[in-house]
């Protein structure tokens, strides 16, 4: 057994020991509110920290375990199968904290934050998207103006995950509207409990409210909260988006496994004939199997390349694009297949085990974290060398861009 496989086996054993208290199977019987589930999640994170599975690939001097990216992926892949209550901490530890580690000015304070975040005692959010710019991040309008030896910030962010439970956030704001839009941005951290910060949850189409609008009304920022240069915010933001390249993927598009579709089809009929014998259903099963197998093979090959000390290829960028839209179509088909039975809908059913919630929440997956269109643009431009789109805002000061 390789060292990674041994590590993976140990991780699985530890996770199994935690499962009776924390795994989805155990929690789903309890009908917990989000707040109760979060409280359990904080306990889980503390146990995970104490067991040495937190900050796996981070340096030990900052509170991590000093292991490789492969160790982290191995743990994440195992953890995903248990459905642990860690969803509230994914963004916090995925992007804001690594950036804080890199750019935070007061190192002792940074280390304290890192450990509290790893233990689930504090949560950080990422305040990027705005009503005027999601995919087009640099179109953002929230501004920070000099105020004595610091800054004063006013504006609005949107789609901020878990902001209602967050202690801190990282934020990109406009500090100079007279230069090109990418060049007038600066990156800060912000205290989410500060005066002038207001969080309003947004109820999504699927019924849950994990994303928020966040309003800033003349919020005071110290200059020590700045991360990176004044005017260097776009670069730090891009760095944030690049940082989590070594994440666990899911060829099911974070929806149900194909086996569930096969089981669904085995139980049902079309015009009195077994659905599993229907060519359309068989074609859908076969095509989805082949596509998912391809994505899984890409993941395995990337892993093998990392183990061999090589850089994985750009084909890893296909995962979300291909998997989530396929999940969306397959979920529609599964609901059709169920006929009137599909109307019996539970909005709280787990998306990986239920076609109704998988279908209703699939559009979020195709938009969040890079829309399908943006991902296609990225592949076309960065991987294949195709030209950028026509950009009327290019080379124009932000305050002179035609409305």
């Amino acid at each position: 057994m390789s060292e990674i496989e041994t590590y993976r086996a140990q991780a699985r054993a530890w996770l199994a020991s935690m499962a009776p208290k924390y795994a989805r199977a155990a929690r789903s019987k309890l009908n917990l509110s989000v707040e109760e589930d979060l409280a359990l999640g904080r306990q889980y994170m503390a146990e995970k920290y104490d067991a040495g599975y937190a900050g796996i690939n981070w340096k030990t001097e900052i509170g991590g375990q000093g292991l490789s990216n492969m160790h982290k992926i191995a743990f994440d892949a195992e953890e995903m199968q248990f459905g642990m209550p860690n969803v509230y901490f994914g963004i916090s530890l995925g992007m804001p904290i690594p950036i804080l580690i890199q750019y935070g000015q007061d190192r002792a304070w940074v280390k304290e934050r890192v450990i509290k975040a790893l233990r689930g005692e504090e949560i950080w959010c990422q305040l990027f998207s705005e009503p005027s710019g999601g995919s087009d991040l640099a179109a953002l309008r929230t501004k920070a103006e000099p105020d004595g030896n610091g800054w004063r910030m006013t504006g609005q962010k949107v789609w901020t995950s878990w902001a209602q439970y967050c202690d801190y956030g990282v934020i990109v704001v406009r500090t100079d509207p007279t230069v090109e839009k990418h060049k007038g941005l600066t990156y800060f951290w912000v205290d989410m409990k500060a005066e002038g910060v207001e969080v309003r949850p947004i109820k999504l189409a699927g019924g849950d409210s994990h994303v928020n609008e966040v309003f800033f009304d003349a919020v005071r920022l110290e200059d020590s909260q700045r991360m990176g240069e004044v005017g260097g915010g776009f670069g730090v933001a891009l760095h944030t988006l690049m940082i989590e390249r070594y994440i666990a993927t899911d060829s099911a598009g974070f929806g149900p496994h194909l086996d569930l579709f096969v089981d669904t089809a085995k139980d049902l009929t079309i015009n009195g004939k077994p659905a599993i014998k229907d060519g359309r259903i068989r074609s859908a099963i076969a095509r989805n199997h082949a596509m998912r197998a391809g994505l899984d093979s890409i993941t395995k090959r990337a892993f093998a390349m990392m183990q061999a000390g090589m850089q994985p290829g750009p084909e890893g960028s296909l995962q979300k694009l291909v998997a989530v839209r396929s999940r969306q179509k397959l979920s529609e088909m599964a609901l059709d297949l169920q006929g009137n039975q599909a109307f019996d809908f539970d909005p709280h059913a787990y998306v990986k085990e239920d076609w109704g919630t998988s279908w209703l929440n699939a559009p979020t997956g195709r938009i969040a974290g890079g829309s399908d269109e943006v991902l296609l643009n990225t592949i076309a431009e960065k991987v294949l060398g195709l030209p950028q789109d026509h950009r009327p805002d290019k080379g124009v000061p932000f305050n002179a861009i035609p409305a």
Partner: protein
Amino acid sequence: MSILYDEGQQAIATESRRVLDARASKDRLLKLLEQVGEHDAAFWDTAVEQGWTALAVPEEHGGLGLGLVELGLVAQASGAATAGAPFLTPGYGVTHALVASGKADLAAKYLPQIAAGAVRGAVAFAEGTDVLPAAPATKFADGKLTGTKPAVPGAIKAELALVWASGANGPVLALAELAGAERKPVSSFDNSRLYADLTFAGTPAEVLAEGPAALTLAREVLARMAVVTAHEQVGGAEALLHIARDYAVTRKAFGQLIGAFQSVKHRIAEMYGLVEIARANCIHAAASAGTDAFLVAAADARLTATEAYDTCARDCVQIHGGIGVTWEQGLHLHMRRARSLAIEQGNLLFWEDLLVETLTGEAA
């Protein structure tokens, strides 16, 4: 099971591509389209000279003792060049059947000649629209074959055929020299594939497997050939992806490069996705040969490679506009090859069905 190519395998990939690039001739390939009964002889000579015919033949029979991974890499290079004579893949099918059947005398008789390129193989399984018919009309009795196999790839020139037939005790996988069979050339949209109806009228043949063992072996042979073909399809699809990309960054319309239009750039990005998914499946399938997971892996590779090549052929022509449909420009070489390869070794419909049968545990 390795899923990263080692140095030797990378050298095979680079060298086969280099040789084929140096010897490729679009004019030669275009001429072949209008001739029935001629194959890409320059390719076949290259294949023999480079030892590709010997790649998967065991060393004891004069081969190199390599396998599906290496042959797949050669097939990928030949797919990119729309080169390829229709003997490399079936030759491998015949080779595997000879080795797996354990018929040492037959292996000793034919494998050295296959390795040397002196004997060219064909595989005749399909009848009517059935890829692997449950009860083939072609009969085997008293050491002789009787019946007709329609449009067998390579059959105009092959010397030896692996035939799927009905025997006294269920199906038979038989090996027949084609000197004693009648060949009726089929005029096709991809003539260098050398399709011919093969008619056996008491043609002497040797049994490689019978009954349930014959079905198992026939499926294994078909799956292995399908994985070689899937590599060839990936090679073709990837070549089309690059051709489309290169055209989109040189051709202008409405005052800008057409590659700046999202309708075009997204189409090309989608081609990339299909190619990479199919490539990943091919690598996995080739590395899975001989394991229980192979049939499913082969089906996954075949399905995604067929989709990739078809879509790339369709969309690459579309991106070229008018020039893409001219004879001289030659994109139709890929379009034609995409279709012929989509049908050889079993079409999508067959593989979808076989995959679901395997996944659901339905009786074969």
